[in-house]
Each structure stands twice: as structure tokens, then as C-alpha cells.
């Protein structure tokens, strides 16, 4: 049994103009000890997905459908009080810019003590001990516990956020853009730290990022999201080397890779559709150079086209030809 099994999860937002279907039927699993990278562009629903999983959501968000099975227990139907005993202990979330949301007039150690004492039921002495251990685990000087959050550099903040997420030995850690605001050298250090901790502690990881190269370096599996849906999912190496969905092919074209030298970047024209009234067919059809009539009428479902690799596209059987055409600049011009 998978550690986390998300089945047809939907998270919508109530707005004055109707429901915004930000996450509209997302399914994936995370096995014990494995890592999944959830990638996509702003507004594709990747943060909303994980917020739905831990059910830390804004007031106007609701889950109309779907299951989130953590070790077989459905978190969606669980009452809030029961969820509270699962958060931190079973799974923890590192939100975007986690340390910037700490109270600036309290010491960093206070945040740790609060979690460890309130959630972990530790005495103050035990909690202090554990906080020091956690700081050592992520390579921070334990004297820094007595600093205020603003005295930390960007890299130290991310390390501290990771340490806090690990406070009560969760089996699954969800990190939302953990390295986005960091400089490259610090980013590399934090990514190495994450990899090391995963191996050492055997934890599973879901990492949200817009940067496919970060996923390439850290995650076993990848799920590509577009407009509230997963369009492709599989082993990271397989998906990046052999993308099946035109959107994944386009993302790869648009992504600069310094090691491959200078080559023309190709953009995907247009913008994602409104999720207030999403199109009936494939949500990428409008921007897709390979779209047929069927694509705007019938929604494609995720189908296995290579070993362990699924994609939602009506033209999966022509994937070789599409991959060749996707590398040409002309293909992507004047689509809209």
C-alpha cells in the first residue's frame, strides 16, 4: 500500500463569479521513502493540491470530491480534531517562505518549542534538547536557536524550516517551493541537505516547484500539472527524456539549459484557460500545436503509454512524430 494515495482530488474556491476549479481531479501516489516533484506554472493548482491534502486552506476553498488516503486513512472525511493529531506527526508541510511567516518578535527557538510541546507533548527541557538535535541535523549552529528570524540568511531560514517540519518525525514532508528565493549556490546546499535527510531518515517527500531542473536533481518521480489537472506523470528521468504530453514537450523547449549551450528557446504562446469555466475538452488544446477537433470536445484521460508513465493526450499513439515536430520553432508559432 502506498504511503499517500490521492484519488480524484478536487479543490475549488468559491468566488463571486462561481466556483474556481483550481484543482479538478488529481490522482497520484507516493510510496514510502520516495519523492515526487509536482511541477507546473503559477495558477496550475500545485499549491492548492497540497493545501487540500493537509487541509490547510483559505476559507473560501472546499473539497467537493476526492480522497486523500494516508496509510489507508481518508484525510478528506476526517474531522478537524483528528487531522490535528496527524499534521506534524504523520505529515508536515513546509509552506512557501515558511520562516518569513514566523512571529518576528519571538525567538526561532520559540517556534520549535511551541510545536514540540503542544504537538509533541514534550517538557520544556525535552523540547529544547530535541530542537538542538534538529538544528544539528540540518547543519545549523545550535546557538542560532536564540536568534530572531530576521537574523537568519535565506539559506539558514530554509534549513530551519526543514528542521521544524522534521520536529515530530513525520513520514511524509511536503515542501512548497523550498529553494525558490535562494541563490544558486545556497540552493545547491539546501537541495543536497534535503537529499541527505531523505536517505538518512527514510522520509517521503512531495516537492512543489516551477523549476523542472530542481525536480531533476531531487525527485524520483514527477507529476506535471496544467490548469488544475495532472497531464503527465512518471519517473523523472523517463518523463524528462521522453515527454509524452505536448505541454511537457513545450516546457522542456522553453527551459534554458546552460550545459547544452546556446539554443533557441521556444515559448508556448497564450495563457492557461480560466478555471471558472474551464473548456470541455483538453485544457491545453487552445495552446497546443497538435490539437485536433476532438481535443476541444472530449477530455483526455491519463493513460499509460510507456512503462510506469501516464499522460492525458488524445494523440499518445503518435508521440514519436509529435516529439520530433515539437523541437521545431515553427511548430509552436501562430497556434492561437
Amino acid at each position, binding site marked *: 500500500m502506498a504511503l499517500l494515495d490521492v484519488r480524484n482530488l478536487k479543490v475549488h474556491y468559491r468566488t463571486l463569479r462561481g466556483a474556481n476549479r483550481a484543482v479538478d481531479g488529481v490522482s497520484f501516489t507516493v510510496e514510502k521513502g520516495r519523492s515526487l516533484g509536482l511541477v507546473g506554472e503559477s495558477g496550475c493548482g500545485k499549491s492548492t493540491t497540497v493545501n487540500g491534502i493537509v487541509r490547510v486552506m483559505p476559507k473560501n476553498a472546499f473539497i467537493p470530491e476526492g480522497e486523500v488516503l494516508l496509510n489507508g486513512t481518508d484525510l478528506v472525511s476526517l474531522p478537524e480534531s483528528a487531522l490535528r493529531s496527524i499534521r506534524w506527526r504523520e505529515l508536515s508541510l513546509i509552506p512557501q517562505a515558511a520562516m518569513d511567516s514566523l512571529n518576528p518578535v519571538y525567538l526561532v527557538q520559540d517556534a520549535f518549542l511551541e510545536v514540540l510541546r503542544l504537538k509533541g507533548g514534550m517538557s520544556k527541557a525535552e523540547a529544547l534538547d530535541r530542537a538542538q538535535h534538529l538544528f544539528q541535523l540540518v547543519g545549523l549552529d545550535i546557538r542560532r536557536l536564540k536568534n530572531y528570524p530576521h537574523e537568519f540568511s535565506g539559506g539558514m531560514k530554509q534549513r530551519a524550516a526543514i528542521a521544524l517540519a522534521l520536529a515530530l518525525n513525520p513520514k511524509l514532508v511536503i515542501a512548497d517551493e523550498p529553494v525558490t528565493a535562494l541563490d544558486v*549556490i545556497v540552493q*545547491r546546499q539546501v537541495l543536497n541537505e534535503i537529499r541527505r535527510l531523505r536517505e538518512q531518515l527514510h522520509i517521503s517527500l512531495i516537492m512543489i516547484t516551477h*523549476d523542472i531542473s*530542481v525536480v531533476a536533481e531531487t525527485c524520483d518521480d514527477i507529476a506535471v500539472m496544467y490548469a488544475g489537472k495532472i497531464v503527465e506523470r512518471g519517473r523523472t528521468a523517463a518523463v524528462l527524456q521522453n515527454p509524452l504530453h505536448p505541454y511537457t514537450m513545450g516546457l522542456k523547449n522553453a527551459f534554458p539549459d*546552460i550545459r547544452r549551450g546556446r539554443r533557441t*528557446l521556444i*515559448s508556448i504562446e497564450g495563457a492557461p484557460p480560466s478555471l471558472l469555466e474551464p473548456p470541455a475538452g483538453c485544457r491545453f488544446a487552445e495552446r497546443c500545436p497538435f490539437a485536433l477537433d476532438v481535443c476541444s470536445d472530449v477530455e483526455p484521460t491519463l493513460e499509460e503509454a510507456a512503462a510506469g508513465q501516464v499522460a492525458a493526450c488524445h494523440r499518445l499513439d503518435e508521440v514519436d512524430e509529435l516529439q520530433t515536430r515539437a523541437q521545431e520553432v515553427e511548430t509552436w508559432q501562430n497556434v492561437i
Partner: protein
Amino acid sequence: MAERDLVVDVRGLKKYFRVRQTLFSKGYDSPWLKAVNGVSFQVSPGGTLGIAGESGCGKTTTGRMLLKLEDPTEGEYRFNGRDVTHVKRRELRQFRRQAQMVFQNPFEALNPRFTVYRSLLEPLLIHGIGSRPEQEQRINAAMERVGLKPPNTYYEKFPHQLSGGQLQRIVLARALIVDPIFIVADEPVSMLDVSVRAGVLNLMQEITASMQLATLYISHDLSLIQYLCDDTAIMYLGQIVEMGSTDAVLASPEHPYTQALVAAIPVLDPETEPPEVKIKGSVLSPIDLPEGCLFQNRCPYAERICRSEEPPLESKQSGRSVRCHVVN
């Protein structure tokens, strides 16, 4: 190229800020923060220079000085043949027209209450350019140049009705509408999604080439610099540590810091082990700088001389300059 043909020519540019460390300290006895500590470079018409470095290295302050938004503490700045180092702000009208900025965040760079037309009209009104019909003509031309066609469908749109890519095109059009000769683009696409980023980059590349603009790109992202810039300067703690043609600097970096920067870029191929980043520790405080090389505390190759003598930025025959005792 003769010196008089240069658009931008800066020598030994410095910018120090006073930092008040306590609430009641008096300004004059506060220590200096050396944000930019003697940078020199040139940009010619049609030339593209990229300044790269991590946050706090002084790249943005350098850009601000080149636009005269910040007065240099020391050094010389010649713009289009004229010394503008100490020119008073109100005498800068012509300069302000010729040197334009492309802002980082297109979602904030435009007035939310202005229509697209009004946003593009604003610089023309400020500089008193053209009659009404001429202004409309200019606005049309600028919008077509950035790929917003047909222009009149965008006239009455407000920023919130447009996508990030469209907004950045308007920000670009607003900079181009007064016929500048120099553009500073500070992280021009960092707020955009990958799929639209490429379109804006291609557009900027094509426009700066066809209009023969001198362009300074400021970015932390070396892949973007590689894509856009002929030449690259790598900054560290207010100084240029390596400069040369972009392809050469990125393919065979010589300064230990540049080597680490290049090695730290994530590898897109999951099967390849990422190269090792050899440097440790973190950047020194720009308030209390040591003798010698500013990179000494992180450098894996530091020798005794690096702790006592500041290495000069030495130019080599290949056109590369490197600030390092060990390499030179």
C-alpha cells in the same frame, strides 16, 4: 571601438551607503556599507552586457547608478560621450529619455488605474513628444514592435485584464517609445512563467539587435545571461571578479567563484550527477571587509597572498579579465 562611440563608459564606480546600526547613532560616525566597490566596464551600441551575481553583490545598485537613480560615491560615468557623473538631476531630461529601464515585476510596474494606452502615453507627455496623432502613431508602432497586434484591441485594457507576458511586453514598449539608446533590464523575466518567458527573451533579443540598443541585463540567472548577452561580468561583494565574452566565461570559468556559480546550476538530466560545488561558508558582510581578496574565506585555493593583498582585475590577451592571485 573609439571611446567616443561608447554609450556607457564607467570607470571605478563606487557606491557606499551609511548604515545606522543603532536608532540614535548620528549619521557621520556610522560605518560604510560598500555596495559597489569600483566597477569599470563599457557598453557600445548594439552591445549586450550581463551582470550576474548573487543577491547583495551590488548588481542592482550598479544598474541604478547607470540610470542616475543613485549618485556614485566615486568614479566616472560617461554616457554617450558626455560626463554625467555629477550632472544635476534637473539637467538630466535628455538623459532620462535616452536611458530607459525595464522593470522586474510587470504586475507592479504599470499603474493599475491607467489603461494600456494611457500608460504608453505617459512618457510621451513627460518628454513633450509629438502631437496627438503622432503620439498615437508612436504608441501603435511600439505595441506592434513588441508583438501586441492589432494595437487598438489593447488600448482600453487595464493591467489586471492582461497576462504576465502581455504586461511585460507593455513595460518593454513603454521603455522603447521614447527612442532610448540604452536599456537597463533588471531581472526582466524572473516573474514570468517558463512557457512565456522564452517569448519575452526572444523579443528583447530581437529588439535590442534591430534598434542597436546598448543593453545591460542584470540577473542572478546565468542561463538567461547566456541566452541574451555577448559579454558577462560576474560580481561578488561589489566588485567584478570575472569579465569576458559570455560563451568563454560560462564554458570555462576561471575565477573560483564563477566556477562554483556555474557548477551550482541544477542539471536538467536526472541521470547525470550534479558537479561538486567546492566553495563553503557564506558571503562576508559588506560593512566590515578584510584586507586582501574578498573571496578568501570561501576559496578552496586561497594562499597567503590572498589574505594580505587585494588582487587586481587583470586583463588577458584572450579578452578575459579575472580578479584572482592564483589564476593570474
